[in-house]
């Protein structure tokens, strides 16, 4: 999924694509690839990575406010902190976060193409409402 080049001490940059799209042609891959910067905290893996839109491709002002998943200068809002509790294998945590960033980008591309946020993409609502969904999901197993 990743083509990341890690620069010491803790920043990785590169272009990422969903593994299921890797068989596409070079041209399509480049359209669906997302250039990101990943910042590893000093106490990684105790704390999760943070993902940034490296080329500022996502224009958050152009999408509905409820889907503007960004911390601005502090990166993309890829997950609710509670959701990390349910990651079974800690080593998967970074992959899941990067995947979430890619999906956000793909949803953005879809939105730019159709003018509507893709209805089937179930991102979390802003604020505390997200906790209920996460817990519900967890209970469902």
């Amino acid at each position: 999924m990743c083509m990341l080049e890690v620069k010491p001490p803790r920043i990785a940059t590169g272009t990422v694509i969903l593994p299921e799209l890797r068989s596409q042609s070079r041209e399509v891959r480049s359209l669906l690839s997302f250039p990101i910067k990943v910042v590893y905290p000093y106490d990684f893996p105790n704390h999760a990575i943070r993902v940034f839109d490296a080329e500022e491709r996502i224009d958050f002002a152009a999408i509905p406010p409820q889907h503007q998943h960004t911390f601005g200068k502090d990166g993309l809002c890829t997950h609710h902190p509670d959701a990390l509790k349910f990651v079974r294998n800690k080593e998967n945590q970074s992959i899941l976060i990067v995947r979430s960033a890619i999906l956000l980008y793909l949803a953005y591309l879809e939105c730019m193409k159709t003018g509507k946020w893709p209805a089937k993409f179930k991102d979390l609502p802003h604020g505390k409402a997200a906790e209920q969904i996460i817990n519900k999901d967890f209970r469902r197993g």
Partner: protein
Amino acid sequence: MLGLSYYMSKMRGILTKCCNNINYIPSTFILIIPARCLEKMSNHTQPTGESLLEKTTGIHFYIGIPNFDEIIKGEETANDEVKRSIHRLYTYYIGLISIAKYFEASIEKFSGSRAHVYIEQKDEETREDYILRCVKHMVASLRFVYDVFNDLGKYSQYPKFTAHGGADYGDYYKYDIDGLDEFTTIGGVANIAAKIASAAPKKYIYITNDFYIQLSSDLKDCFNLLDENDLQEIQERLKGNPNIYCVKYCDLLTDDQEIEQLLEDVDEECNTVANSLTLSEMEVANATGKINFSILSRKKSKHIEAGILYADIRGFTKLFNVSGTNLDSLAIVLQDIYDGLNQAATEYDGVRVQFQGDRIIAVFNSFKQESDFELVRMFRAALLIKDKISDLNEQHKEHLSGRKLKVGIGLCYGQFFATRLGKATHKDNHVLGAIAEQGDIAEDRYAEDQDVVVNKSFKEQAQSLSNESIACSVIVSKLTAISTTGYYRTSITLKEFNDAVEKAIEEAKNSAAKEVAVALTSSRGIMTPRGSERVLKPWGW
């Protein structure tokens, strides 16, 4: 009358200095100029426009090694490296440079095993002495190959070089390509010399009738008119019917002491040069980055799997023969041609090897962070050259006197070698190997106006990348075989190509959209190498 206006402006300057106490300087005055000064002024070559396009007359001589391609192919097949060929080529160049220097000839370019030399008459020299100097230079060059180079101890175990030559006499234009650090001559005289040289059998020198009539009667007696069959063959290549004369190098100036002495000196120099570097000290590394010719040398060459572009402008030289042609205008067109060719190559990350007359050779190899496959970049550069030439035809309609520039392009792909050889005073970039020869053939033999012709391995490489690259699949779909030659042609334009690629990408995107939709809706779990996991979802406070 550039000379006169130049002279008048100088005179005006002198008058200004003399009359510094007078406020009025006449803009017209009567000049009394001695006849000999007028003659000098008319011969004075003044820079035309912003460029230097200088008309001159002289001999162009090409010497080539007809078996060099075979030698290099043999070495490539035997050990994948061409160290021996590069080593020998370097020594051969050094010998030719020394001979040219001795006879005050100028080397325009070394291209593979071919050297392009031109010789001008000196002011103080008689016509007879000048022609004799040219003939001595030609004979010394061929004798150097057979009697000196092939006898060098260092190369005694290698296949011997053969040599042939061709020369023509006439007008041509010297041009310093502005901003691109290259010099070239333009004119039919060089083209004809190159073509008759390549038609000459080994050990022979062919000359045109224009050169022949300059010879003294003694020298004329040494040359023979080609027989009808040979003549017809060459005239077909030249698309004209000049008489061609031939001589075996060893039948000309047989006991010339000056040549003997020179060759002894050259022998000594070449021996020193040949023994100054062993093959184990030579490095032929695989190219990983964009080729930088300035760091290459006999000691350090590159082995590359890449593409080579050959783009030749046709019809430009003929413009010089159109009566009333303005040299300044042609200089502007010429500079635009060179800029256009160079820009097209660099825009797609190609590296110029050299200009040969009005032809460009450029290499496109793969490197980190390249925008596209080298094959695609090279193909786009070729199409951009076609566009640029069409634009120039429009832009310079008047300067071109109603004629149109034509362009033929050859592309090849495969493994070859890149190096830079020569002395500090004259060095040229080179691409060597069987593949490089195929690109040359694609352009020279098969590419007609606005055609892009590719070799077989280019097509095979494009085919192998078709699943990976939409642009490659479009390239393959546009190529048609040129009978059973192993070459393929297309006349597609850049716009048509871009449209076709865009359309194919759109179709591919639609098929990818399904997979994107599945990914976006998989709100539950995914399978990772370490087991299944629930996906994380973007959030926001």
